[in-house]
């Protein structure tokens, strides 16, 4: 279980332009939950993601993963538990490494980086099999440089890479927002499939109402740094895009 207790975060503290990005946030994410964090620009949803990933440290409060306190851990130490997919489809991969090397990097996310040759034949066929599942025809290009692929292809691979090593939490920061409508749908469906198959605890931050209505098992609505709604999706309550728009 992942727990946030009384998280506060302000920017430009003590100045006239002080922004209270997170104001007393209390949240619990159960194992296997797929949570959609919905909010307008400046609602604090990105800051919420950043305090979880460690890019930003909170001013107050406590964050725990399976009762380990990670509140003040630097970003690279939390990667042991947290896997991330960024909004920029190029941000989650390394252009100048091959596809195979990118996957190797992802496969040792939670492990020490040793002086061993890890890209063995066995690893290569594992990666090839995983990529073949995408049906993008990339399985025969594992030796190609990542930089030669399109944004959509790279984001699809980033999603696969996110589950190459164990993760207690998957953070998705509008992974499809920078892609064309068709690719965007493919990426979201792929994300949903990966989360379901690996029974991951996942948080998707978005301001896309359609995605929020279509995916996830719970919706958290944020506004001005606070949580204004927190709804479990089930047969009786399944908000559509129109009612989500009214919540906004």
């Amino acid at each position, binding site marked *: 279980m992942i727990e946030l207790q009384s998280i506060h975060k302000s920017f430009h503290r003590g100045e006239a332009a002080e922004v209270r990005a997170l104001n007393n946030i209390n949240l619990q994410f159960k194992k296997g939950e797929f949570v959609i964090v919905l909010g307008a620009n400046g609602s604090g949803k990105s800051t919420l993601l950043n305090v979880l*990933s460690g890019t930003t440290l909170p001013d107050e409060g406590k964050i725990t993963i399976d009762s380990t306190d990670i509140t003040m851990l*630097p*970003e*690279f*130490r939390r*990667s*042991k538990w947290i*896997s*991330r997919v*960024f909004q920029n489809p190029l*941000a*989650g*991969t*390394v*252009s*100048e*490494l*091959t596809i195979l*090397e990118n996957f*190797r*990097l*992802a496969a*040792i*996310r*939670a*492990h020490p*980086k*040793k*002086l*061993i*040759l*890890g*890209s063995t034949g066995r690893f290569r066929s594992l990666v090839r099999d995983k990529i073949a599942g995408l049906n993008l025809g990339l399985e025969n290009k594992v030796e190609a*440089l990542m930089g030669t692929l399109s944004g959509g292809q790279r984001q699809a691979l980033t999603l696969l890479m996110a589950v190459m090593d164990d993760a207690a939490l998957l953070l998705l920061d509008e992974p499809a927002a920078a892609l064309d409508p068709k690719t965007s749908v493919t990426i979201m469906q792929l994300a949903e499939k990966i989360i379901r198959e690996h029974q991951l605890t996942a948080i998707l931050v978005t301001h896309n109402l359609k995605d929020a209505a279509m995916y996830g098992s719970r919706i958290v609505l944020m506004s001005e740094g606070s949580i204004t709604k927190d709804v479990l999706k089930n047969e009786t309550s399944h908000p559509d895009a129109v009612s989500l728009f009214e919540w906004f």
Partner: protein
Amino acid sequence: MDFYSAALLQGLGYAAMGLGIYISLRIFNIPDITTDGSFTLGGVITAVLITSGLANGLVFTVAVTGGALAGLATGLIHMRLKVNPLLAGILVMTALYSVNLSIMGRSNLPLMNTPTIFDSLAFTSDPLINKWIIFLAITLLICGMLTWLLKTDYGIVMRATGNNEQMVRAAGSNTGTMKLAGLALANALTAMSGYLLVQYQGFADINMGIGIVISGLAAVMIGEALGHLFKTHKILYHVLLVVGGCILFRLILAFTLSLGLNPNYLKLVTALIVLFVLMVTRFKTSVR
């Protein structure tokens, strides 16, 4: 012919330094010019310790460690004190001038009749062929080890650090530590070149490192231009092409000197060659 043979040997001697620049500039994307200082540091340590009669293996270890520490200093100034890496390099390089001078106690130290690596490792009775064997063996050894390192899990993280730091942190690595390791490795290699060349030329000089970073840069650029030609992204080829660049650069210099150029203009010619290579590579990339 001897003239060109000497240029080739020098090229091999500078190969480690060229690879050092390749590591800092291309792998880590950090313009590090500690090089001028760490090259001389490696040379000065070598001259002082060899003339004092220390075993060559130990001399090597101390010289290379010295270079690594210089790189570490630049890295720490850059990262802990948030100084621009170029400036951090200049600071360390400048400071090293005094350090080198005080280690040597004078501005020039000949090795005289003390045995060098070329004497203690005698494979044949012909001293020139022996030099070739030793230079080639060492260069190939460095290339092999560097290629291996860059292909390991640790090496993949190193290469990713220069390209996408955000991703590397998200993939569980401390990019700061990685960069420190990279700068230490780069300058250890540079010091190794100093160690080799001092023994090759038979003396250490306080000014032996001036402008060395530029020749390393030229070697990396020439190697890259050739890499475009061969359209390869295999690390071994990149590494070998940097060595090729070092050799080619020395040959070009030797050629210009053989045309009867006043040696006073050597650094000017060096700068012009680098400028030319830069222009050619720019032109090539803009065409692509």
